[in-house]
């Protein structure tokens, strides 16, 4: 977190989370939340941030120069992909021939996205085997022809993916150099900087990233304008989906890394507020409940492919389990089986729920009738059958506790941290939970998650242990991951290895293993002048 200077008060940090519905903001000094603010998200990016900053200043006056860093999490890029809007035409260049031609780039993409990006697909020679031997040498003349084509068609972005780039990125880098030399205006995204082993998923993520680069420029400009316009000169950071931060320049190049940063920030914020590092976080909203596990303070990541806007990717995403159950979920008493959700009155809880005088029996009504929450007018649900209320609350508890159980990584009961407006549906205990924690400021946990974020570095590669020992390979990966964290802005002394994963390759008598190491450290913050 924050490196406090030797003298004077610790610097201020501002965390902002721009969600689909609300923009949340917090002002923090060290571990203390000085101010929190919630406002509807506006289409105008700059205006939304300025409104949030003004809101904070209204609660706790602060001088712009006292702020040492601003951290922003945003769903803009995720929404752009889901809606197939505001993305640019993109050339997908794969280096791997004579391999890989059986499944060309953008196979199985949704039509709207394919159309938006155009179908500029190039397969060239290059790439390497799992042990680094070249599949075929990069054919520079061939790449030059692609460069000329991209320039001729006026395509603003290219995505370069070579086979086993996580093992050797040389061909991707050379290809990028050729573009930089001959077409400096074209933005280049390379797969080795974006994803892990698994060509199609990494390539998909790289193409999406390339297509969002222009938008990333516009959004980050708007964010910077807002922050600078407010008089804050401190560095601006953007939240990534693994719970760490990146600088604005990095975000312009890797907008894909912001995907799913919302849920991650919410989980990290919950962990911070509760003081739990290994726990399950239950985020109950109006319509859905998301549950994820925190391991050493970071969300456990999904190991399988994650689909974004219909495209399979494998970038770092938190492993969430979700069900259609929230504060607005509709209760169906039914003659045989009681059912709650997945239909919800959503944001219309206020007019439609019974406690607000509406006609619909919702999960919130059960919570009020059961004495768990005081919302609206409890008298309106006083007449509910006590057996129905008890059965309904029991069902809610059972369904959430099953989710918590699925999010667990081991047999030991986990602490459970509850956040989100719908968390009133649950009582003080939950089966399978060692304890249940409801932290203060739970409604702005996501903004807090952004404000407290660290920076990280990762290594993911397949190594052959024929020529060296496992320990030597692991050590090298650890050192590289740590060096990458420092390069991303971490203070060297604070860097720790948070994850080491080793997967042997099946069906082969050789000694090849896939090694993944992740390091994180505290962001170096300058003391406020």
């Amino acid at each position: 977190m924050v490196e406090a200077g030797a003298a004077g008060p610790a610097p201020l940090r501002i965390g902002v989370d721009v969600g689909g519905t609300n923009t949340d903001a917090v002002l923090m000094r060290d571990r203390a939340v000085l101010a929190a603010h919630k406002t509807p998200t506006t289409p105008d990016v700059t205006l939304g941030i300025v409104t949030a900053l003004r809101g904070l200043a209204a609660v706790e006056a602060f001088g712009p120069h006292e702020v040492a860093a601003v951290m922003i999490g945003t769903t803009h890029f995720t929404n752009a992909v889901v809606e197939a809007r505001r993305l640019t035409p993109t050339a997908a260049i794969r280096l791997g021939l004579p391999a890989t031609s059986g499944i060309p780039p953008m196979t199985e993409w949704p039509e709207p996205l394919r159309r938006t990006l155009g179908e500029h697909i190039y397969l060239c020679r290059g790439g390497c085997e799992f042990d680094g031997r070249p599949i075929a040498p990069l054919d520079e003349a061939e790449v030059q022809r692609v460069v000329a084509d991209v320039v001729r068609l006026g395509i603003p972005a290219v995505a370069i993916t070579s086979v086993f780039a996580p093992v050797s990125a040389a061909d991707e880098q050379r290809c990028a150099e050729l573009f930089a030399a001959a077409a400096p205006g074209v933005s280049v995204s390379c797969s080795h900087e974006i994803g892990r082993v698994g060509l199609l998923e990494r390539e998909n993520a790289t193409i999406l990233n390339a297509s969002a680069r222009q938008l990333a420029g516009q959004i980050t400009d708007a964010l910077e304008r807002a922050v600078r316009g407010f008089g804050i000169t401190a560095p601006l950071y953007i939240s990534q989906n693994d719970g760490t931060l990146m600088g604005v320049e990095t975000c312009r190049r890797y907008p894909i890394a912001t995907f799913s940063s919302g849920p991650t920030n919410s989980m990290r914020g919950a962990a911070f507020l509760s003081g739990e590092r290994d726990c399950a976080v239950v985020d109950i909203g109006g319509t859905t409940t998301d549950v994820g596990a925190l391991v050493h303070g970071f969300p456990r990541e999904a190991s399988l492919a994650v689909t974004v806007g219909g495209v399979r990717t494998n970038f770092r995403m938190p492993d969430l389990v979700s069900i259609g159950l929230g504060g607005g979920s509709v209760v169906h008493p039914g003659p045989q089986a009681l059912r709650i959700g997945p239909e919800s009155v959503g944001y219309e809880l206020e007019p439609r729920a019974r406690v607000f005088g509406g006609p619909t029996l919702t999960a919130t009504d059960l919570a009020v009738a059961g004495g768990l929450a005081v919302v609206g007018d409890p008298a309106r649900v006083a007449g509910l059958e006590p057996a129905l209320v008890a059965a309904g609350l029991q069902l809610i508890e059972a369904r959430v506790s099953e989710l918590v159980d699925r999010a667990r990584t081991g047999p030991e009961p986990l602490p459970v941290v509850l956040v989100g407006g719908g968390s009133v549906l649950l009582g003080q205990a939950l089966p399978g939970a060692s304890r249940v924690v409801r932290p203060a400021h739970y409604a702005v946990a996501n903004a807090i998650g952004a404000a407290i974020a660290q920076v990280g570095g990762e290594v993911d590669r397949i190594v052959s242990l024929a020529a060296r020992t496992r320990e030597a390979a692991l050590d090298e990966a650890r050192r590289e991951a740590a060096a990458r964290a420092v390069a991303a802005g971490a203070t060297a002394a604070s860097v720790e290895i948070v994850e080491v994963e080793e997967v042997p390759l099946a069906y082969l008598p050789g000694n090849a293993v896939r090694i993944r190491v992740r390091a994180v450290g505290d962001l170096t913050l300058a003391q406020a002048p």
Partner: protein
Amino acid sequence: MTGRRVGADALRDVARGAAILGTGGGGNPTIGRLLAERAIREHGPVELVPLGEVPDDALAADAGGMGAPTVGVEKLASGDEHVHAFRALEGHLGRRLTHVVCGEVGGSNSLLPFVVAAHLGRPLVDADAMGRAFPELQMSIPAIYGVRATPLALADQQGNTVVLTAADNRWTERIARAITIEMGCTAALSSYVMDGRQLRQTMVAGTLSLCQELGQLVVASRARHQDACQRVADRLGGHRLFDGRVVDVGRRTETGFARGHAALDGLDRWSGSRLRVDFQNEHLVAVRDGEVVAAVPDLIIILDRETAEPITTEELRYGSRVTVIGAPCDPRWRSAGGLELVGPRVFGYDFDYVPVEALAGGTAR
């Protein structure tokens, strides 16, 4: 021309069904499916011929792949190498292969025969050589009948092809795997050349159609809110061995194979019981409360309890709620010759094979 035509849109069901019969092994079939879909879109549908209608004078070989699935998802195939391997066998034999066959159902190897059949316009036999998946070349029903895996052809994307003749099937396995590593850990493979009579004697009939049917069954049962896991068990004449929650997964590598086990705590009527499933790429043995309830070569199938999606050994993880099904293998595996190739003792267990219906007979269907 007696077969039915199979288009690209059928392959999703085939892949899902193959993952069910693959008993946890074979890797993810997505890459094989995408290759096959593209080959069919480019070259037209594949003619699927019933095993019983393959003429005596037919000459066929299987088409598939060998190597590490982890590499196969990165260095994707071109599809041409599978055609090259098949062609290399023809070159060696000096004869045209009239049919393509499937070596095993499970993972991409159940889809790759569609690639070759589509490319070359040859009929594909609706059958496979195992009725399930196994990790090694000699673990094949034709081998019980003395059919050699060789001549066997391997091909890579560089234009290298190797035609191998070997002293026996175990040598074939060793040498072919060494070549595969040199080829970058994945290779296209064609092997087990047989005539029509041998095919009808040694192949398991109808398994590609069965894969498609199982895939459809899962999707349809789910849509009708039926118990899809039970429907799968019933269709295979199998037994529902256990419903439970994964509480432990241990993995280790031994001689290049991903070995390990999963421990499950029972749910509902199995509450209080525990089931352990051992695997070496495929599931080998299921032990419930200390008693073996199913063992190789019978099929031990793990499905997601809610969706009935098959779960491979790589996907097994703590907290998954699963249904475990034990289904009888092809009767030929149960012969002395079959058990010598794939019985429990081959995988290091110190007990003899007992059919799943005898072991799980007391388990309600």
